[in-house]
């Protein structure tokens, strides 16, 4: 009977296409929008992956990593003296205008690393040596910077080339790989001391302090200890990630706007497939009544409807997620828009699609249970 149930479904081309189309649309919209949303969220915490540290010490008012509130230079030493801290180093982070060969200005994300330890270093150096940053007036830039700081249509800049930051020459000694940041500025790494020269002078220049716990202490324990002793704010990596994402949820319309689209996908899915499937059942009521008269139990008919609904569900889901993955591949090549597809996401969509299908089937099943087999005798 299951085979015949599928034939009955496929026999109604228009409804079948409508059902698959609606469910494809729903799963595409939900998966793709979630992936873009997750991608965007991951961009907000790119700093954490481009400058790695166990503990991030910041001004007490800071809630998220993209927010810089300058600290006193002496704060580095205060953190260093806290029990449980193995070492602590200064970090400068600021968005600064760089001037390129044709005289135009481009904003860059300048990062100044402690010159002795180079803690906060980028994760992957593609060419050059990070240690060369200790030479005067040198920087290491990411691939995006190469693109942005090269002349349009001209030769790509590379190691040995220079550009200006704040009227001072900066020479490229290496290229690194970074995760793209939410604001989209290219990363330019230099030493903390050099950054002090590049950056416009202000009373307070220190952006953050990066610290590591001593052996035997967890990052969280040390962070709490730093907070107690210095009254600065200390985040572990995980805490800073969460706090940053929470901040974006609370303070921007981004989650709401994505949420709306995702819910829209869900509603379209449930309305289109529910409606179409229900009318499929209504149009087949005579046939279903005949089957019921011939002794098909409600449960058998219910299973047939569930099979029909799940079949269009799986097909629509397959196409929708397939399209999302294709979209993802296309996006990974260009890096824009953001896209992050953890395996839980397709699973989540699958659960939602199954839910939609079961709901659609249930509408029909209710009808079947109420259907009196004797209807088949009526004209």
């Amino acid at each position, binding site marked *: 009977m299951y085979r015949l149930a599928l034939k009955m479904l496929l026999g109604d081309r228009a409804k079948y296409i409508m059902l698959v189309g609606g469910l494809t649309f729903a799963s595409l919209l939900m998966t793709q929008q979630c992936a873009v949303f997750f991608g965007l969220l991951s961009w907000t915490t790119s700093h954490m992956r481009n400058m790695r540290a166990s503990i991030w010490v910041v001004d007490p008012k800071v809630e998220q990593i993209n927010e810089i509130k300058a600290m006193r230079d002496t704060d580095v030493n205060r953190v260093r003296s806290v029990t449980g801290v193995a070492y602590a180093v200064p970090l400068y982070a600021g968005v600064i205008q760089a001037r390129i060969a044709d005289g135009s200005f481009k904003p860059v994300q300048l990062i100044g690393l402690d010159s002795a330890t180079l803690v906060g270093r980028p994760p992957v150096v593609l060419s050059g040596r990070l240690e060369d940053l200790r030479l005067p007036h040198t920087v290491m830039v990411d691939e995006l910077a190469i693109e942005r700081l090269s002349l349009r249509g001209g030769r790509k800049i590379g190691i040995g080339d220079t550009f200006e930051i704040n009227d001072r020459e900066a020479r490229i000694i290496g290229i690194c790989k970074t995760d793209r940041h939410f604001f989209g500025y290219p990363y330019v790494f230099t030493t903390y001391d050099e950054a002090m020269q590049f950056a416009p002078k202000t009373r307070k220049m220190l952006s953050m302090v990066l610290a590591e716990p001593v052996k035997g202490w967890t990052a969280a324990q040390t962070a709490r200890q730093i907070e107690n002793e210095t009254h600065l704010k200390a985040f572990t990596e995980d805490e800073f990630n969460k706090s940053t994402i929470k901040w974006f949820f609370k303070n921007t319309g981004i989650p709401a706007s994505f949420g709306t689209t995702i819910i829209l996908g869900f509603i379209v899915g449930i309305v289109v497939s529910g409606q179409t499937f229900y009318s499929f059942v209504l149009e087949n009521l005579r046939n279903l009544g005949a089957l019921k008269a011939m002794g098909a139990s409600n449960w058998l008919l219910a299973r047939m409807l569930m099979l029909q609904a799940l079949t269009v569900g799986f097909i629509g889901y397959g196409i929708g997620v397939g399209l999302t993955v294709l979209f993802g591949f296309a996006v990974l090549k260009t890096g824009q828009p953001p896209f992050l597809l953890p395996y839980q996401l397709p699973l989540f969509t699958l659960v939602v699609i199954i839910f939609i299908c079961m709901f659609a089937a249930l509408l029909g099943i209710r009808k079947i249970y109420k259907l*009196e*087999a004797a209807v088949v005798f009526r004209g």
Partner: protein
Amino acid sequence: MADTNGNKNGFAVHVRNVTKTFGTGEAQVVALKGVDFDARMGELLMIVGPSGCGKTTLLSVIAGTLVFEAGEIDVFDSPLHRLKNREVTEFRKRNVGFIFQQFNLIPTLSILENVSVPLLINGVGRVKAEKKAREVLERMGLAGRENDRPTLLSGGQQQRVAIARALVHDPRLVICDEPTSALDKDTGAKIMELLRDVARHPDRCVIVVTHDNRVFKYADRMTEMEDGRVHKVHENYSQYEQKGNH
């Protein structure tokens, strides 16, 4: 008269004082007002009477497709008035073959698939079911049409497919509601001849509801209904004719 295939009274179908009401209040219609009725093994019993007298309703309660408020119905060994819903479904699945006025074949399935449906519902495997369906279709003169859609067939051919479907699982009771009304005279006559042959079987009872007087002559016995009651039973068609009916 002891009939091993029938119920304890020797009847295939034994209906006593059955009432059935549709709707409530103002819209209430009493379709069956205490019907007594019986049918025997090996006969083609016709239920006749004017439109709206309750023929279809009577057929529906006998077939177990409609619940009734009062009275008793025994079909073979099954007391329908005492069975639970689920048991009635089980009863229909095994014992009843259905033939409808509008054929009610499933248009998206092939003829072979349509005919194999009752076997599939009874849990017979697909290969076996289709083999049996093929045999029955051949007996109905429809060999070679197995893979066609029902809509490609003429009305008479479709009704023969429906008969094949009604017989494929060897039911003891075959129920037909106005099987010839949608057909022309000659085709209707052929269908009735087929049904009479179907009834010539000691293990089977065929009940035909009709108001088509052109086919009355195929009846072994006739039950005349009027306004929700059985009005007269004629032991054969000539008896019916002699009483001034045409």
